[in-house]
């Protein structure tokens, strides 16, 4: 007997007490927990997102679509990165005001190439207000997972309010599990030294989130 059949056989014998007509999945779980916590207007939800992002040490900026290129140029200049990597699907307008050398991510570029890059600019799939989380799903404006990981400085653009949901349940509803997802809540951190949170380990040590309202070039 192979191990698969052996394990499945053991599981079935172990569950001899479970009746054949055991409660089916859709009735087995009461889902009387909340879909979101509290009643907030759209503006308040965006405000909560900004608060929670900042609480976990992300730097939060707000602007309109027209102001976005200038704001991004300002952030990159202030950071002083020699180059910035962008996913192939990022709207060129976003960085049109910046003179930081722009590197488009290519499949052929190696992690060593990426390790030399100072900053990365991406969009996101959505953001969760209650937890201060941005979620990337590898869409055109987000690119491969590695580009938001290896550089030390990540600038993530969130269109508000349409990319903002209140809660984790609402986020999962909108996300596609077939895509590789990265949920990001603040810069990388650790609680491994005396169970106290310290920011800045392997992922980007600086996370800047730009909440942009109004018309945005996609």
């Amino acid at each position, binding site marked *: 007997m*192979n*191990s*698969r059949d*052996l*394990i*499945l056989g*053991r*599981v*079935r014998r*172990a*569950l001899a*007490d*479970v009746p054949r007509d*055991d409660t089916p999945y859709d009735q*087995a*779980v*009461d889902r*009387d*927990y*909340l879909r979101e*916590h509290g009643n907030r207007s759209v503006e308040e939800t965006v405000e909560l997102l900004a608060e*929670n992002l900042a609480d*976990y040490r992300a730097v939060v900026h707000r602007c309109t679509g027209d102001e976005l290129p200038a704001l991004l140029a300002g952030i990159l200049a202030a950071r002083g990165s020699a180059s910035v990597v962008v996913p192939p699907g990022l709207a060129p307008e976003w960085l049109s005001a910046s003179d930081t050398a722009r590197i488009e991510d290519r*499949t052929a570029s190696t*992690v060593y190439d990426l*390790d030399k890059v100072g900053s990365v600019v991406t969009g996101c799939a959505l953001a*969760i207000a*209650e*937890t*201060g*989380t941005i979620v990337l799903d*590898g869409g055109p404006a987000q690119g*491969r*997972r*590695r580009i938001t*990981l290896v550089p030390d400085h990540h600038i993530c653009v969130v269109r508000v309010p349409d990319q903002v949901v209140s809660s*984790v349940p609402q986020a*999962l*509803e909108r996300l596609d*599990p*077939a*895509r*590789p*997802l*990265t949920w990001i*809540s603040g810069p*990388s*951190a*650790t*609680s*491994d*030294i*005396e*169970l*106290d*949170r310290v920011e*800045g*380990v*392997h*992922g980007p040590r600086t996370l800047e989130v730009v909440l942009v309202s109004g018309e945005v070039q996609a």
Partner: protein
Amino acid sequence: MSGGTFVGMPSFPEAAHDAVNNQTLRANLRHATHTIRGKRAKAVAEMSDWAELREAGKRIKDHTLRHLDRYLVQLEESVTAAGGVVHWAVDADEANRIVIDLVRMTGESEVVKVKSMATQEIGLNEALEAEGIAAYETDLAELIVQLGKDRPSHILVPAIHRNRGEIRDIFAREMSEWGRPAPDGLTDTPAELAEAARLHLREKFLRAKVGVSGANFMVAETGTLVVVESEGNGRMCLTLPETLISVVGIEKIVPTWRDLEVFLQTLPRSSTAERMNPYTSTWTGTTGGDGPQTFHLVLIDNGRTDTLADEVGRQALRCIRCSACLNVCPVYERAGGHAYGSVYPGPIGAILSPQLRGTASEIDASLPYASSLCGACYEVCPVAIDIPEVLVHLRERIVEGGPATREGNKVVLKPAKGHAAERAAMRAARWAFGHPGALRTGQRLASRTRRFHPRTLPGPGRAWSDTRDLPAVPAEPFRDWWQRTHGGKDTTK
């Protein structure tokens, strides 16, 4: 370069004896557990529906366990359909063999690892090392444990028994043996220590061709795996290598994508007391052009089906490894994780290890007693595992013996040695309570001779009464008093 192992561990009381006399260890543990306790309570209080989330988490896990065969088959199908390869391992040896062969097939001789309880449990690092394959732990606490040739002592923070000064010394002394040395003049500030780990591990991440991980959840419906982490080392291992091997216990399944909405709310708040942990990665098979192009999932039993066969004990398999129960436990806080002789310390370890490994060894037979049954663990458990209930159940099984399942076979355990006096006392009590005349005579005799009672017990009871006063016997048995006074109505004497 391997750390210590848990083989041949002394029983819990023996191991704990040294720990409680170690002042540094006790101070470290007290500081860390008290820090996190308060924060957790605050993070949980933010959620008005915590009780409902906890109940839903319990029900999802219970339902999954009750139909585990079906969900395992479904998971296998969906992972395969998404481009992954599924392997099955009955025990630790088989799991290690599978991983070794998979690494060999890549032609590589080193792997980077995401912190994983399952691979700790099966001793994968030691098995890889024996075959000439270097396994680099990349979680900060695991790195501290690995560099310090130490053993993990906490589920979430395996180096919780080390304070910042000790960590600094380990880094300064050991990092150069493994790769990039610690920066000169390294101090003990946590930020500098984290920076040293970042520099040390970066070269390993960048050149790694094989990553090894566990998973917090596997979704049967979609074939999605989930890893919840903080540092980004998980993302490095999950996305930079060409080959990813995930070793996961069969109980880590949830039926649907939607079920994650419960656990992604309860797990971060219970473990690190955060609204959300910094990084959560989910992946479904392989994705062209992004991340590993080869994905293997190794499903391990290693005692889980034996645990599942116990109708009371199976609830331990609901555990999502948050470690909240460790952080509130008065016994863990004083004895530390090493005394539990397992990668699963604390209250959950006290019910999980004896079930996964059986109660044949001294340490496993002593673990269900490593508790005061105060119930704080049950209170904080985000999937409502009634740890005290299982502890008492396991104690009974150890003392009385009885039916159990070991390696898939039904066996009848013999009563454990060393509980003879306890069993004799219980038998005598049963007889006395069944014979009212004898009980009455005995009670009167006890009352009349009370002046001559010793203050401590003789024989096997001596240790117990070393630190406790024996209850004083009243001058008159309660029943006699009741008869004489008609329940206190007649006189107050």
